[in-house]
């Protein structure tokens, strides 16, 4: 599998982990360091969230091979796709995700834009 496939799934993991567990993971490092990837996948499964388990399975299949390899395109399989008036609790299932900032020039400091724009 290509790195872009792994990155796509890892990006979903990033967003979901941040939302569900308030944990920020390193998407790039996951594809480079197996030990780190295994730790993150384990952490994701410990949360008990269906989304995270699904993504962890997908990523494990892409990274290490095995029965959990992705049979479908990760993006298509994304359960966070827009479903207007979805009944899920809003805290965990917003219909609109903010763009992740792990694929651009870097993230602003954690305290930036908290409580004030300027």
């Amino acid at each position, binding site marked *: 599998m290509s790195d872009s496939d792994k990155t796509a799934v890892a990006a979903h993991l990033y967003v979901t982990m941040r939302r569900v567990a308030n944990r920020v993971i390193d998407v790039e490092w996951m594809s480079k360091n197996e030990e780190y990837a295994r730790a993150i996948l384990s952490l994701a499964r410990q949360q008990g969230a269906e989304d995270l388990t699904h993504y962890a399975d997908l990523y494990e299949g892409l990274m290490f091979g095995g029965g959990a390899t992705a049979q479908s395109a990760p993006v298509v399989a994304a359960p966070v796709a827009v479903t207007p008036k979805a009944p899920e609790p809003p805290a965990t299932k917003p219909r*609109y995700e903010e763009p992740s900032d792990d694929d651009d020039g870097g993230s602003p400091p954690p305290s930036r834009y*908290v409580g004030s*724009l*300027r």
Partner: protein
Amino acid sequence: MNVNGFKKWISFALILNGLVLTSGYAIADTPPPAAKEQTAAPAVDAAPDATATPPAETEAPAPAAAETAAPTPAAAVAEAPASGEASTTEPSMVGTDKISAGDTAWMLSSTALVLLMTIPGLALFYGGMVRKRNVLSTVLQSFAVCCIVTVLWVVIGYSLAFTPNTLYIGSLDRLLLHGLAYVKETSQLTVSHIAPTIPESVFVMFQMTFAIITPALITGAFAERIKFSAMVIFMSFWTILIYAPIAHWVWEPAGLLASQGVLDFAGGTVVHINAGIAGLMCAYVLGPRRGYGKEPFPPYNLVYTLIGASLLWVGWFGFNAGSAVASDGRAGMAMLVTQVATATAVLTWMMIEWVRKSRVTLLGACSGAVAGLVAITPASGFVDTEGALIIGVAAGLFCYWGATALKRILGADDALDVFGIHGVGGIVGALLTGVLASKSICNCEGSLISQSIGVLVTLVYSGIGSLIILKIIDWTIGLRVNSEDEQDGLDISQHAERLA
């Protein structure tokens, strides 16, 4: 509750007037009739006696004419003959030969520039600062306000604001613009007594664009959480009950604050302090956004904000220089000081950021520009270049404080810092106008006390009036979207649209 709120509002306005009248006349250095020269910027250079002054000579001061143009008791105004010559106290019919082509061309251009400030200027400025899930709703609010206020302005707003009647409010003579005319066959048309060298239709449009941008500014305070329906109702009532009276007080020569000698060339009080305090009330009544102060609210695209700020900057030349209501030397000075104060405020804001945070931000530069533009607005027809530099520095300093430290002190989630920049900048500009007004430019004297009264009256009236309107809407249809809709974003929940 409606009746009680209305009664309170009326009582408050009456009490306020009593206070201002008693204190204002006691402290004013000049007798009230001279106030027109000082206050209603549009009337000063625009040859108050249009019947005696050909359009080409509108730039020349005409002190004697200004004397005759002093506020007249309402009864006398009502009896003024509409004899086909321009009256100085009320809109009237004149021949087209009294119209200045130069002034009219400039005012048409200024009107388009000021409208450009709201759509798309302010829409983009605000749209770039909210989160991606709320961009469409934010820009739509500015667009919708433009349409709402346009209709309200021609139906009743213009008449309440810009016709003589009482100290507090204009008459209904121009309801649905009744009486506004252009008769090609007889080469006659109506002019406003405030702008006698341009067609009244142009003046109505020019002032309409001010009435549009003022409530549109407020949308930044309640961004990302208000119901669209509540926003529409609030803006409608606010335009009629808050904006129109304050415009009348300040810009109608016989208005409450104009007659006290309050100086406001282009709207520091009417537009910015007014919108700023109303925005702060909105922020208090609606409450903070979900997650405010705990999680980051990253702006969607600050390039939009830069484009919006740039459009605001350019459009502001129509706002300030257009407020001369003439293509003359005073308009030129207003344009010059607008540019100088704005650039100075940007540099000041950037310097503060550099010192405090070791870096300069794009949002900071844009904020500094708007701060400078706001602060120079009331002063633009009164100060010289040195005054503009001082106002620019003060705007950068105080608005930075307003958008950071003061914001924390106030504790309201004023999402896009409407009070911190427009409220604080407007207050700084209004007060400094009293200090820095140049006699050679405006043939007037500034008074810090008069300016303070203007600021205070506007803060109190707009603040309490806005609060009452908000509470009534909250008790009836509700102001705020529910938590789920807020989490999903207003684009989806209110408008069923989203950015790709």
